[in-house]
């Protein structure tokens, strides 16, 4: 598979462009921003985006997610020089943007109080990213809701549309703004840390949630070359597989992840020795990091592992797309940051992720995602000489 990336953009706590986010991850600073935007939220910090990302004023998680998606989509389309969509597919991943999280309306209704207007319920019905994104296309519109693999799956689905002859290019990505309901849910699951997260660290205490979005314009390679588009990199492989094991815990042997990574490598026609690094899912929960770390060590021995959530938080439905942008940007720049938050190897895992900013020279990198529901995704990226 050779799918060209001709446009990409991102918004996350580490930066508001691919380069600024990558180098933001390399700088040591206060990693949280702002205070919790909702007084009802339990006191677990998260990686917030500034209000300017939401048009100056936050509304609710559905509209805020839509605002993020619109912003990154516009930027990616502009970079790719794409105007009319034609029959291009629109494929976006999200969690908050598709969930029934209209708590304010529901609570008022349940208590017999009058429902405020405008309200979060009405916003939910007009904020489905794929259906409501302000682009005109007669192509497929898919809102992917695979929990934390949504963003990666959206990219893989877009690639498959192109490989099967559905259109010449596609707009894809992921977006999530954090609201009260998911914030409460993750806190109550006991997997959120009150401190800055520590991916793969022996003393990790859980994840930090984060807000973010990323969009990519993907194009059939021949189409991109024909129109002399700047090719930022290639997606050469995608793998996706289910653990079929548990709703919130990964398979102890990383069954689905092994399969997903193997599929992506096989489709790319490469092996571990060709891979510059892995951008791991690395949420900093006990379970995820143990299973993912062990699986990556077994499958890709000697390949450097980087986890970016120490500087972005876990952006849920956006994570796979955001990490795809960061992975490709790192390949482009030949520069891999240290893993923020990591300091001590966990002997249960035996994995030491990047501990210093590193120069990379190999052409390929992998990004992995794992999610509730048992989904696992892997994407392989290749640097191109056309930057």
């Amino acid at each position, binding site marked *: 598979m050779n799918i060209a990336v001709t446009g990409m953009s991102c918004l996350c706590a580490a930066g508001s462009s691919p380069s600024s986010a990558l180098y933001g991850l390399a700088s040591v600073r206060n990693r949280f921003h702002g205070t919790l935007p909702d007084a*009802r*939220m*339990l006191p677990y910090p998260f990686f917030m985006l500034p209000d300017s990302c939401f048009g100056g004023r936050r509304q609710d998680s559905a509209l805020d997610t839509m605002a993020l998606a619109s912003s990154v989509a516009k930027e990616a389309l502009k970079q790719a020089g794409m105007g009319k969509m034609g*029959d291009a597919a629109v494929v976006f991943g999200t*969690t908050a943007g*598709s*969930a*029934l*999280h209209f*708590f304010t309306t*529901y*609570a008022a*209704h*349940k*208590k017999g109080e009058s429902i405020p207007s405008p309200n979060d*319920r009405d916003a939910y*019905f*007009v904020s*489905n990213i*794929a*259906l*409501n994104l302000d682009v005109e*296309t*007669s*192509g*497929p*519109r*898919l*809102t*992917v*809701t*695979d*929990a934390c693999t949504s963003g990666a799956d959206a990219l893989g*689905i877009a690639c*498959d*549309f192109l490989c*099967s*002859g*559905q259109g010449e290019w596609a707009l894809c990505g992921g977006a999530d703004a954090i609201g009260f*309901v998911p914030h*409460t*849910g993750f*806190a*109550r*699951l*006991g997997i959120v840390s009150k401190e800055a997260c520590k991916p793969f660290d022996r003393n990790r205490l859980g994840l930090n949630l984060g807000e973010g979005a990323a969009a990519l314009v993907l194009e059939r390679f021949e189409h991109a070359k024909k129109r002399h588009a700047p090719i930022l990199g290639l997606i050469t492989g995608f793998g*996706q*597989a*289910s*653990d*079929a*094991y*548990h*709703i*919130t815990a990964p398979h102890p042997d990383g069954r689905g992840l092994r*399969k997903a990574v193997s599929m992506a490598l096989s489709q790319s026609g490469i092996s571990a020795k060709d891979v510059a690094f892995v951008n791991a899912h690395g949420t900093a929960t006990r379970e995820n990091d143990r299973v993912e770390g062990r699986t990556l060590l077994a499958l890709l021995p000697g390949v450097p592992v980087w986890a970016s959530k120490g500087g972005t938080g876990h952006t849920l439905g956006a994570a796979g797309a955001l990490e795809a942008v960061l992975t490709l940007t790192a390949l482009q720049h030949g520069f891999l940051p240290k893993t923020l938050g990591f300091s001590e190897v966990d002997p249960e895992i035996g994995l030491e992720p990047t501990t210093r900013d590193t120069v990379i020279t190999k052409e390929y990198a992998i990004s992995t995602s794992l999610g*509730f*529901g*048992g*989904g696992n995704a892997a994407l392989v990226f290749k640097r191109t000489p056309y930057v």
Partner: protein
Amino acid sequence: MCDTRVQASVVGLGLVHTLGGCRQLLTRNPLPKSPPPPDCSRLTSLLSAKTLRRIPRYARMATLAAMDAITQAGWQDDLANTALFLGTAYGSVAMNLDFMDSIVDNGARLASPTAFSHAVTNIGAGLVSMLLGIQGSLITISQFSLSFAGALSYACSYLGTGRGERVLVGAVDEIDPRFTALCPNIQSPSYPQSEGAAFFCLVPARADAPRLSVRFDKTCSAPLLFATGLGMEGAVDNAASFGHSPVNQALDTMLALLQEQTAGNAIDCIGWDANSGRYAVVSVERGCRSFSSMA
């Protein structure tokens, strides 16, 4: 117009719905005003009580319909490389509202973690894959009434790329009176609300089996149109027997596959999302094989 022209063939069907199963779909009897919920009692003879203990009704409907489709296709002995793509408009509504109830009633500090973990939109696909041992790709698409069309469009592309040989694609949505009271716009003034799950076993397109494809506009070319719930002139509207539900496009598709017709005839099944005004059309082309004898 976008017509993917990527087709997939159907080799198995399963339906668990307010109206009943595949046989009842064919009879097209009108639904009563307040129909009973779908009967999932058969699951207790197929899966252990312990296994089913924490499985919400939403996932029970999906699991049973998926099992029926898998059985008809003869896939039950090899699901390790089967993919599962599910379309759902609202996900597990009851568990979502249970979680919000737990916040309202007990406060955020005591909200139910179990309800939250079962409220994620992809819980249906996750539980079906877990219960049935499906280890291929696992994808959930959520875009109101066009969720099934979205899942099916990817299934066709997935098979078209050669990435896999088998896809179980379906639609599932449930009724919850709390949701209906809060969102009266999801009801129809003319037909009762309905719920259920419809599954299709798909393989790469072949001449001897019915074929499906999807396009995302309302251009239709088939001689016969199904457009349940849309009130579209010249189209068959099955709402009296299907009721009102986001899974209706999947039911139209299944009916098009099941009913007697001249081999080779095509039926276009039209879906529409009222919130965005978007359309999707599922084209059903009959090969020489008919599902009517299997219903």
